């Protein structure tokens, strides 16, 4: 079958779903959706439809990015625009099927928005929502809209037309097209993709490899997972185009084992590609042959580094080696190898489909196109977003993310994972691209954005990242292996109230040694979270060291819990909930926490009824309270109370 015939058949199937006589129910069942309860929703849909004997197409789709409103369910009713519903529970499923599918009431109270042409009273267009309005969805355009296991859906939406175009082009022309698009590597370093391909193409050698780095290890990042779960075919199309341009006959996808759903979707996609003869020998009857293998990672952050990743594919411990020689000259099994990130490959597919000039319209002078980010942490609307380069962090956090959770104050934004840094509010209005983030002391990284509010302790965050890199250091370079350990020890001291005034300087000095003396990106960037937090939040370090006080009330060793004698009603709820038996008191008697016994678990604060709000969490100060339980109303008469 020719590609034109494949396309025709795919479009017919896609149109039948969108405009056919049978209603469709689409459930966002990526990992986020499942974590929020999509599986229970799917089961309920199935039950309801069977019970009512309704014929409908039920389909699992990837993540549209509105993770804060998961589980998401879209309903397509013949002759009406598709409607997206958020925060769907099994109970709501029953209502939607009864009210909308059976009776025709679109339940605007439960709807988030409509998708496609047509208007439904009382429901906005989904893409007019504040979270989606300023986004430009290029790489993610299929996520949440097509069935990621159905190759026909991808083809009907323009898929593999980029590959067909590439098959008619000379490899050098493809590379030229990618160069012209201005695409830079989306894995973090931002190296120009076309140039990277050219190096590998020109390297002598018959056998060459390409690799897709899907070892998204940065804690706080999930863009690649969502893309692989929601639109795996785009990544594979990009790899096919890259293989053609570079002259590789074999490729690998190295995906971390923590992403079982992404791996499953990739395996299904590969099978389908084989079935359609879009992979293997003589693809679409051309002279181009390409084979692809999936390699499952085994849990090592350092394998995100390209030389470590290749060692891991070869079956070895994932330890980086020095460069040069670069992988383009000597990579996998000593052969020229080109590694790109998941998002880079998906971008290649869309660039070939729509043209380099179209793509280069987006972004800034030095950073073309769009970037996907995972927005998480203390922000109202968490999710997966895609914006053009040049947007400011304020737009991302306030417009798209809806501001800080629960009206709290913004403190910092963390980008680039353990290799990145924590940037303060001064940075919010800087346009984001590779260079602006680097000059601020952070990095773009793969695109994780974690927002932190006033309740986040920056010293604790620095300690958190250090404990991560210290565990994940492969151990090859001593400055990384031991330097991060020493830095972690100092940070542990500071957060435990044992900090010394020289510690800040010592940390900076050690950080420089670790940066200078490490072979790979892990060690070279490991001190970044510490350095940026010292640079922008030195006061917090000093409060910990000099006053033994944690201003954000996070570091356990520096905080204490007390019970306000004026507010305590002697209800005994906290007394019973205390696992350490540290609370003394009785019925209608003001409770007192024994500070020696208290383990600072915070249970008392959580269980104290909000209408009393009697438990106080403080750091560095001791409120005036009685030492022993006293009857309610007598608290003011004690000596302690008069201090």
């Amino acid at each position, binding site marked *: 079958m020719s590609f034109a015939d494949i396309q025709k058949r795919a479009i017919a199937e896609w149109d039948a779903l969108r405009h056919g006589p049978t209603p469709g129910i689409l459930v966002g069942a990526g990992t986020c959706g499942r974590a929020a309860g999509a599986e229970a929703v799917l089961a309920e849909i199935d039950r309801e439809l069977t019970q009512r004997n309704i014929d409908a197409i039920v389909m699992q789709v990837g993540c549209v990015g509105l993770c804060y409103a998961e589980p998401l369910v879209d309903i397509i009713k013949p002759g009406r625009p598709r409607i997206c519903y958020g925060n769907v529970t099994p109970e709501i499923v029953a209502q939607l099927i009864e009210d909308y599918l059976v009776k025709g009431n679109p339940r605007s109270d439960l709807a988030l928005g409509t998708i496609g042409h047509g208007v439904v009273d009382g429901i906005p267009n989904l893409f007019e929502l504040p979270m989606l309005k300023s986004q430009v969805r290029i790489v993610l355009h299929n996520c949440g809209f097509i069935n990621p296991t159905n190759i026909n859906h991808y083809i009907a939406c323009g898929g593999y037309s980029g590959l067909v175009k590439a098959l008619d082009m000379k490899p050098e022309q493809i590379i030229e097209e990618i160069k012209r698009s201005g695409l830079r590597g989306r894995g973090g370093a931002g190296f120009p993709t076309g140039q990277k391909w050219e190096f590998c193409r020109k390297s002598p050698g018959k056998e060459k490899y390409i690799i897709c780095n899907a070892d998204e290890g940065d804690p706080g990042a999930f863009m690649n997972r969502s893309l692989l779960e929601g639109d795996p075919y785009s990544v594979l199309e990009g790899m096919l185009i890259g293989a053609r341009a570079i002259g590789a006959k074999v490729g690998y996808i190295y995906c971390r084992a923590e992403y079982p759903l992404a791996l499953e979707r990739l395996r299904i996609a590969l099978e389908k590609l084989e079935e359609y003869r879009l992979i293997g020998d003589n693809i679409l009857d051309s002279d181009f042959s390409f084979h692809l293998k999936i390699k499952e990672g085994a849990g090592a952050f350092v394998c995100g580094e390209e030389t470590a990743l290749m060692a891991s594919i070869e079956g070895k411990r994932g330890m980086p080696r020095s460069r040069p020689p670069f992988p383009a000259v000597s990579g996998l099994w000593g052969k020229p190898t080109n590694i790109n990130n998941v998002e880079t490959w998906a971008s290649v597919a869309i660039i070939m489909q729509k043209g380099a000039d179209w793509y280069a319209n987006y972004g800034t002078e030095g950073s073309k196109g769009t970037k996907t980010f995972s927005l998480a942490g203390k922000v109202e609307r*968490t999710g997966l977003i895609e914006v053009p380069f040049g947007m400011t962090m304020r737009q991302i956090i306030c417009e798209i993310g809806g501001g800080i959770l629960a009206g709290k104050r913004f403190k910092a934004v963390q980008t680039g994972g353990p290799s990145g840094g924590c940037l303060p509010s001064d940075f919010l209005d800087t346009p984001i691209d590779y260079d602006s983030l680097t000059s601020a002391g952070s990095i773009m990284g793969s695109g994780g954005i974690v927002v932190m509010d006033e309740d986040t302790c920056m010293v604790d965050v620095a300690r958190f990242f250090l404990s991560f890199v210290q565990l994940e250091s492969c151990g090859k370079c001593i400055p990384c292996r031991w330097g991060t350990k020493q830095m972690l020890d100092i940070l542990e001291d500071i957060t435990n109230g044992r900090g010394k005034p020289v510690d800040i300087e010592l940390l900076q000095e050690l950080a420089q040694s670790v940066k200078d003396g490490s072979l790979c990106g892990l060690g070279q960037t490991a001190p970044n979270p510490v350095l940026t937090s010292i640079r922008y939040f030195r006061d917090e370090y000093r409060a910990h060291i000099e006053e033994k006080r944690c201003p954000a009330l996070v570091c356990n060793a520096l905080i204490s819990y007390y019970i306000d004698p004026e507010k305590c009603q002697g209800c005994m709820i906290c007394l019973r909930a205390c696992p350490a038996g540290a609370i003394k008191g009785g019925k209608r008697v003001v409770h007192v926490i024994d500070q020696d016994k208290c383990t600072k678990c915070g249970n008392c604060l959580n269980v104290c009824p909000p209408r009393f709000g009697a438990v106080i969490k403080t750091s560095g100060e001791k409120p005036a309270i009685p030492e022993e339980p006293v009857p309610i109303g007598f608290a003011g008469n004690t000596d302690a109370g008069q201090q």
Partner: protein
Amino acid sequence: MGGYFEDAYFKAVSRETVNSECEMANPSGAQGTQALLAEQGTIVEERLNEILSSYEGREDELIPILQQVQQGFGYLPEPALKKIAKFLKLPASTVFGVGTFYAQFKLVPSGRNIIKVCRGTACHVRGATGILGEVKRQLGIGPGESTPDLEYSLEAIACFGSCALAPVVVIGHNVYGRMTPARVKEVLGNVGGEK
């Protein structure tokens, strides 16, 4: 590395799995343990042959083989590692090196239910420490440990990539998002009910 195989491994594995049974059968301990391990060895060998039959013996198959063995046995038994080394014509030290490098691989048996608490950045700022503390209190074990009856193991994981629904706990194939300390008991209860 020989020390590992002959000594450390023996201690680590035998204490967890077979010691109690041996002590009942043979109060003097060691001899019975050896015998049981040998017996266990033949079972391991049979199942291992089955796994290895689908591989060609290339070095790059080492990690996939270890993954399959771990899936089949729940951990990497010592006789299996030795046999894999022979099969791939690699020094046992290399196989051991890879087996200990990656976080996924375990050298001692894990509990039937593995409770994985995410400690990623988003989970951390949204209260993962409190979740981990509550799981620790409920199970009475710390990360990397198993309950004495091998019913539960607790692991702190770098990041599951479900950051938008932080904090997250993963048990088997189920991902529990938007966790609170109060929900820990309920989630652990579900697991107990499913077994």
